[in-house]
């Protein structure tokens, strides 16, 4: 066990001696007859506990501790006081200058307990600080790791997808030709893996990124997200998009998370279309008020079975025979939770699904 180092400051030689006599076998004791001697010791040794007399000729104990706190914040400070100057004491304790005070003449047992407690506090604080530093380091490493993973994993995949589209361009294979479906299968696998990587990274980012408020133009956002997901899903081309945005007031919110939420809903609406439906359509409506934005994404796709409705937002829930990671709606829910949004769903199996989300508007916060 580490030896506890105690510094005792008192202008009375007798007190210093009797303190030493009582505690020398328990602690490593340093004594000082005035403040400047005490600072000399503190500059050379890192002590755990400092005890100071309140009434001294050059400065009071509280004044000494105020000064110590700025230069050596770690040691725990105990004040010894022979008279009850309540106001000074109360201030000193409330401002955190003094951990504990003990009246003179001290009782050995009481003082000993105080030193032990003070050391415990010291130890806990240092450990906490070490833990925080350690966590910060792990956090930074994890962020760098995710960054490189998102690149290292996606880069070769993007190249592979590039090669496949080249093969199509150069007529390496033509549809209906024997073996042509192999190319499409490879492409599908790559797209699926790409989607999984993107989703996993989105989920990770959602749990870690601080919320950044920016103004949101829902018309632009919707247009961009539709274009993006049409490109990512082959079937997107055949779907009619109907966008109606009513935004007459500015909206401020977390653009990253709003994009993740609406993007996932659009992606699902494209993915879960019924192949036999000839008028595939997706309607996106948004209404923005100073209070909030209400966005609905409605499709005429496969719909959701009643008994599945309660489970669609749970992690890794998947419907049999459907593609997907079971992460999309889980991410939507998590992202909404971060920005105090709400989601509801109505669906008729075989007819379509409507998701409604409500996101608070933080513009100017005029409502507070």
């Amino acid at each position, binding site marked *: 066990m580490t030896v506890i180092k105690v510094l005792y400051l008192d202008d009375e030689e007798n007190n210093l001696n009797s303190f030493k006599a009582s505690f020398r076998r328990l602690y490593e004791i340093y004594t000082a007859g005035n403040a400047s001697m005490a600072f000399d010791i503190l500059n050379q040794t890192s002590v755990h506990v400092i005890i100071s007399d309140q009434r001294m000729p050059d400065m009071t104990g509280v004044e000494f501790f105020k000064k110590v706190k700025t230069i050596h914040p770690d040691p725990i400070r105990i004040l010894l006081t022979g008279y009850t100057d309540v106001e000074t004491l109360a201030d000193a304790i409330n401002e955190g200058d003094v951990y504990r005070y003990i009246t003179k003449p001290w009782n050995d047992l009481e003082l000993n307990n105080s030193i032990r407690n003070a050391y415990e506090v010291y130890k806990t604080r240092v450990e906490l600080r070490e833990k925080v530093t350690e966590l910060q380091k792990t956090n930074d490493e994890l962020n760098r790791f995710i960054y490189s993973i998102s*690149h290292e994993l996606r880069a070769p995949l*993007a*190249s592979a997808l*590039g090669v496949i*589209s080249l093969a199509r*361009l*150069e007529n390496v294979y033509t549809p209906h030709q024997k073996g042509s479906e192999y190319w499409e299968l490879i492409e599908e696998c790559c797209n699926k893996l790409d989607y999984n990587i993107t989703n996993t990274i*989105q989920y990770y980012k959602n749990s870690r990124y601080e919320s950044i408020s920016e103004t949101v133009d829902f018309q632009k956002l919707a247009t961009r997200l539709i274009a993006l997901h049409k490109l990512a899903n082959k079937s997107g081309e055949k779907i009619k998009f109907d966008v109606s945005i009513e935004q007459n007031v500015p909206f401020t919110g977390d653009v990253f998370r709003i994009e993740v939420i609406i993007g996932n809903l659009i992606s699902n609406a494209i993915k879960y279309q019924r192949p036999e439906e000839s008028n595939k359509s997706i309607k996106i409506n948004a209404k923005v008020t100073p209070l909030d934005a209400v966005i609905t994404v409605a499709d005429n796709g496969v719909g959701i079975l009643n008994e599945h409705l309660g489970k669609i937002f749970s992690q890794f829930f998947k419907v049999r025979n459907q593609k997907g990671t079971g992460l999309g709606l889980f991410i939507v829910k998590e992202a909404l939770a971060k920005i105090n949004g709400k989601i509801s769903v109505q669906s008729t199996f075989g007819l379509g699904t409507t998701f409604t989300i409500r996101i608070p508007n933080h513009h100017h916060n005029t409502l507070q």
Partner: protein
Amino acid sequence: MSERHCKPSLLIIDDSAFDLKINHTIARHTKLFRQIFDFASAETALDFLADNIHNNDILPHLILLDIQMPDMDGFEFMEQFVKLPSTFRKKSYVVMLSSTDDLIDINRAESNMHVITLLKKPLKIQELTQLVARFFHNN
């Protein structure tokens, strides 16, 4: 003006020889470019641009710029690019191309006034034709 003369050049900057080849071939297929130059590093591309500032034959052009590259990355390339004369830059359009999903990179690319947009790899033929239509065929 002859149709041939309207066609822009294309510069592709990517440290991956593989992606360079893919994107080169995709671009060639669009038949939208007068000539296509490949660069395996940002430095060689900068040298080329510096040597050809007065060569109107390479203007106007589109630059497809990869972000993650060793030595000099896409953003460092842009720091040098802005030092080129503005008359030259007016006819030089930069599009960043990356496999990254990283929000910081996306924000950095989008906030750079000299970068038109950031495209996610793989390069899609429609995206490329749309870009050319938007910036080179607007009259």
